[in-house]
């Protein structure tokens, strides 16, 4: 019960800060939209090529948006030593991880609604063939990205290596999530949602492993 309350407090605090700072709306969403438009323009008028690559473009936009969102989530902790406050509080550090991951997941899922709609509008593709599986892919893929990003995002504030550590650790670790998410989305878009099952299974397994790793390791990464 305490774990859940503490995680909810951290998530509530992060979401409140996000709503007031408007980082997702003012920075992340325009960035993702610009990226999608640039991708669309670079492919020219060949609609079939654009349609084939739409799932990858969508997930690349989500991925880069997630990187910005992780940074935003930890920026507030860096102001005036707030992260040290969490370190020194007698709080379950696993609850802090779950709370931060939950807040970033909520932000990214909201952004993804806009990104999916924009992808459909720009590239003329429809992804509404199997909505439950598409939603499952978006959720599982997002949790996969967030579990890795929230775990190592703390290093951008806590570690000496700062800028270098995050891309070196997060980019390779999230590659399986991106591949599985893109493949599942492509199969759903192509009208073969049943074939996406194995990719969704892979995503679920990845999420479970990295959520557990986050709960276990987050406290160690916070330490000096």
């Amino acid at each position, binding site marked *: 019960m305490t774990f859940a309350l503490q995680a909810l407090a951290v998530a509530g605090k992060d979401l409140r800060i996000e709503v007031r700072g408007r980082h997702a709306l003012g920075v992340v969403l325009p960035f993702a939209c610009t990226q999608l438009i640039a991708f669309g323009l670079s492919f020219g008028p060949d609609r079939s090529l654009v349609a084939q690559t739409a799932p990858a473009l969508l997930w690349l936009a989500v991925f880069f948006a997630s990187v910005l969102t992780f940074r935003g989530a930890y920026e*507030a902790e860096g*102001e005036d030593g707030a992260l040290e406050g969490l370190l020194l509080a007698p709080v379950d550090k696993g609850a802090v991880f779950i709370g931060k991951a939950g807040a970033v997941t909520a932000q990214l899922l909201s952004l993804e609604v806009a990104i999916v709609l924009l992808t459909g509008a720009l590239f003329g593709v429809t992804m509404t063939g199997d909505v439950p599986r598409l939603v499952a892919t978006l959720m599982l893929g997002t949790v996969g990205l967030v579990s890795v990003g929230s775990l190592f995002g703390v290093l951008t504030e806590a570690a000496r290596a700062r800028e270098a550590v995050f891309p070196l650790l997060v980019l390779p670790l999230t590659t399986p999530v991106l591949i599985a998410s893109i493949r599942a989305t492509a199969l759903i878009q192509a009208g073969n949602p049943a074939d996406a099952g194995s990719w969704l299974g892979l995503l679920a397994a990845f999420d479970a492993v990295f959520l557990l790793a986050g709960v276990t390791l987050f406290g160690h990464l916070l330490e000096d």
Partner: protein
Amino acid sequence: MAIRHTHPAVNLRAISRAFGAAPALSRITFRVERGETVFVRGPNGAGKSTLLRIIATAISPTAGTGEVLGFDLLAGREEIRRRTELVSHRTRLYEDLTALENLRFAAVIHGVNPGCASAAVEEVGLAHVAGERVRGFSQGMRQRLALARAMLRAPELFLLDEPYAGLDGQAKELVDRLVVGAQRDGRTVLVVTHDATRTHLATRIVVMRAGRLYSPAPVVGAEAAQP
């Protein structure tokens, strides 16, 4: 309620700490008994804040061993954190939360009733800005709020790092009240300060210089021992 325990509040043995190649603390041996109020004085860069942060377990020593409230500095970190409160010049507040939201959040993660937050804000004279974001607060107001957060809890060991810096007379009295209240309850207080006008609150004064501790300096005439 007075606190009575057998272990000393702080017992450090040959503690050293370096940041890169630069040594901040050199083989510090330091003991503080329960219920003492010890003021640590010394010039900038003497290692006073580093010493406090090691005791609070915010950072680890690079060499040496020690216990705080009977718990090992490394193995007993979580137990130490449960029983200590560090108030430093870094106020650890969230800029985009209001004063009250900051305190409520601190209460939840410290396992304290969030309902106490309003009283704490009032106690430090910030009731009129309780619903305003910390981003618009002056440094003095932030420090008052950090004190209010410390007052939410009743830790066995208070660690105050330059608590008087940047405060007006009224706010300094708040810090004094915190220290005197802790003394009355038998709690241990360790204060790092440049403010010579507050040393009458100390039961002992120690002096640090270049990462070394010179102690014990007697309270009476302690200023003469300043480096």
